[in-house]
């Protein structure tokens, strides 16, 4: 899939269409047909909702009742999938190559795809959006309607403000009782706070210590990686009120060093805590990035 597809996908407002496109590109490499929602132990019937797979519809019951019902199975595991979206102001950084593509779009679409996969597998999935110093929670649930809700929340996320405070995060980590998968998409810029680790990274590390499967995707733009900005202009950090920064050719080396040190520290920290970590550029094809991110977890 060429990289320009990202721009084409970013142009459409229909997140579901994008998901279908991306997942079609993924092929069968991800979920391996383990559909727990359609397990062998029958639990109950429920009314059909758009998005349910046709093969789970009980055709005999349709013939009897003239209504669509879907067989729900007793689940063997109660693994929930949590989608963790960083929607701070720095996520608004656009690609300088692809029009309409920014970091938030990339992270949001990747998480939407994960949600769709989880829904297909019958997993419960919830959403946490970190934006404007707060955490917006969508409780974990199953089903296509829930997917619609989560996709709407993802589509409505706006890049704003600072990452949530330690207090806000602490009150939000109530899902940690049950074992879960945590898919976190961030730009990693808030990984370090003013002194030591930031509340965001601490929360993810704590989740990992509680034996949750944390999978981190750090997204950057190609320009950020290569320090490919117009020199001579003044730059302002979107997450800081004051302070201007300059960029000249002489500052490029120092920038690359500091950037490499920052993201190197993230990689080291993830390795130490056995967190799946994948670095991506938002100019890369989304399907490739998604495949590698998910495959890394499978390889562990």
């Amino acid at each position, binding site marked *: 899939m060429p990289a320009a597809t990202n721009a084409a996908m970013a142009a459409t407002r229909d997140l579901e269409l994008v998901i279908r496109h991306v997942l079609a590109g993924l092929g069968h490499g991800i979920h391996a047909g383990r559909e727990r929602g359609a397990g062998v132990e029958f639990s109950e019937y429920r009314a059909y909702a758009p998005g349910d797979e046709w093969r789970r519809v009980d055709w005999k019951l349709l013939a009897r009742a003239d209504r669509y019902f879907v067989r729900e199975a007793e689940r063997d595991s109660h693994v929930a999938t949590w989608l963790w979206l960083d929607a701070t102001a720095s996520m608004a950084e656009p690609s300088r190559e692809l029009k309409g593509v920014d970091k938030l779009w990339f992270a949001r679409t990747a998480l939407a795809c994960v949600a769709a996969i989880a829904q297909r597998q019958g997993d419960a999935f919830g959403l946490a959006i970190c934006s404007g110093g707060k955490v917006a929670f969508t409780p974990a649930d199953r089903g296509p309607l829930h997917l619609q809700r989560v996709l709407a929340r993802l589509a409505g996320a706006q890049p704003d403000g600072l990452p949530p405070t330690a207090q806000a995060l602490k009150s939000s980590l109530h899902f940690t009782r049950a074992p879960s998968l945590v898919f976190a998409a961030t730009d990693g810029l808030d990984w370090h706070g003013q002194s030591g680790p930031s509340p965001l990274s601490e929360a993810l590390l704590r989740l990992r210590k509680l034996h949750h499967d944390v999978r981190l995707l750090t997204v950057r733009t190609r320009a950020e990686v290569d320090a490919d900005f117009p020199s001579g202009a003044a730059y302002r950090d979107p997450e800081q009120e004051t302070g201007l*920064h300059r960029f000249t050719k002489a500052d490029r080396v120092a920038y690359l060093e500091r950037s490499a040190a920052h993201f190197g520290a993230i990689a080291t920290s993830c390795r130490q805590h056995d967190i799946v970590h994948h670095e991506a550029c938002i100019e890369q094809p989304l399907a490739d990035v998604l495949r590698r991110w998910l495959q890394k977890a499978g390889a562990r």
Partner: protein
Amino acid sequence: MTSSYPWWWLLLPLLLLPIWWHRQKRQRLDAQFLATARFLPAAAPQQLRVWQWRDRLLLLVRCLLLVVLIAWLAVTVLPWRGDTVLVDAGADQAWAARQIADAGMAGARRIDLPPDALAWLRHNQRDWRAGARLLIVAREGQIGMPARAPQFGHAVELRVQAAPNVPPAPATSPVSHRVALSAAPERVQAWRALFAAFDQAGDGAQRYAIAGAPVASTELIVWDTPALAPPADWRAPHWWLGAGSEKAWPELSKATTITINGVTLRYADSPRGRLWTSAAFPPQDAETARALYEAWRLLAVAPAPAYPAPSHKFAMASAAADAKPAYWIAWLLLALFLLERSLTHVRRS
């Protein structure tokens, strides 16, 4: 411009202040957002000055406010003078003191008599508080009688010292001027030569009779002995004093300097008459003498008004005051001020 109030209009350049304030706008140089700006070195904020008008309505109101304020100051007068005596410095001091005491104005403030006193009074009568009285004490001939009785908003009394009665010389014969000369012996000759030259000057119609002491009709006393004081009873309309007379004549310390026809003269009024002094006294050459003659003739053209005013009491004319305080300007000022404050408040909130 006899009144000082129009000078307030010189404050009009103050309008430049609000214009300056409203034109100036500082704007930070446009900075782009960059998520990884934290990896870049900090830069000093650069200011870009963009000139453009801000709050035009407020600017308009402020300019109007200033203009109206200046106009109000220019037309509004706060009366501050009380009872006043206008004293002619050349008048007899004893006589003037008598007149002042007689009018009951001994405690009043005294100011020098300005030229054309009645017109000046009429121009500046707004300065005097209501109920203030004015007394003018002057020699005869110092104040011209206006064609119509001036209307004053205050009680003005004019007391004129009668001049000694001089019979006018017949017009056909040469006009004779009596001159009293008292000079050091080495200078007497120069003075006599000067007046002999004056006799010949022009068409010869002016004659100068030189005497050693003045009489009642003496017009000019030449006193060129600075070391000596003149006799106390010597009086004349004009005195010529030799250079270096400032010690004997304290009035000269306030003398006015004029330069006419290349001759620099200083003059001051005293009870004995108008004192003149110059470094050119007595002229040493014919050229200086001719210049002095020209200058003196020019000065003598209008020594007195055609119709001197006699003593007179001007009653207070209530309708005369043309300086009604401009109330509507004050109200306009107040309204503009309120508007300006409101607009400023709206802008802030």
